[in-house]
């Protein structure tokens, strides 16, 4: 990392400023508390938004959303994910969302690309 002008740049040891938690133990606690808060809120969500969902379905979806980020190890990323989850929880709990927003969690947003010949043909792709 030396510049062309010849000035000596000491390679600084970069330490990232923590977002919320200082240690991974701290971050782990935040994640588990977020899970707890969502878990406790689920029956009220079902009742207030009148969604056609059952409690086991919601619990499975909650677990799926947490499992999606299981491999993340960077503490700052975990903090940001927890913050976003907390924002979603607050919006859902205060009824600032509508029924469709809650059902969005259960909708697949990416249409899977067709893999077989007929699928690709109907899509207009060259084989």
């Amino acid at each position, binding site marked *: 990392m030396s510049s062309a002008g010849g000035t000596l740049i000491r390679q600084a040891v970069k330490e990232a400023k923590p977002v919320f938690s200082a240690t991974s133990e701290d971050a782990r*606690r935040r994640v*588990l*508390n977020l*899970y*707890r808060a969502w*878990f406790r809120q689920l029956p009220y969500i079902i009742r207030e938004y009148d969604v056609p969902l*059952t*409690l*086991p379905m919601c619990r499975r979806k909650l*677990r799926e959303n947490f499992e999606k980020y299981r491999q993340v190890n960077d503490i700052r990323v975990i903090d940001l994910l927890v913050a976003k989850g907390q924002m979603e929880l607050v919006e859902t709990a205060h009824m600032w969302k509508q029924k469709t927003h809650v059902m969005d969690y259960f909708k697949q947003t990416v249409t899977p690309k067709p893999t077989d010949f007929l699928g690709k043909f109907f899509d207009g792709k060259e084989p």
Partner: protein
Amino acid sequence: QHAIQRCSQWRCYASASSAGLSQDKITERVMTVIKLFEKISAEKLTIESHFMKELGLDSLDHVELLMAIEDEFGFEIPDQDAEKLNKPSDIIKYLCEKMEVDYK
């Protein structure tokens, strides 16, 4: 169809012993709650079985289980204590201390 969990909370204005709480009753209630938890197979479950190592629960399952116990007994278990409760015997000991029941 999810199992309806047995809810047996009562207010304890008097001391634990006069309210009919004993270590055996606590043990029975804790084991019932754990057995109702569908991710645990009842054959492998003993009082000393470790949740994560022997029964194969992960940390989120552990959280759900402790929440079921909180709901059964009616009070919240703080995080620092919750991390240490890894076996049913730990839970029973912790509850006995919290509810001032003699633990043998």
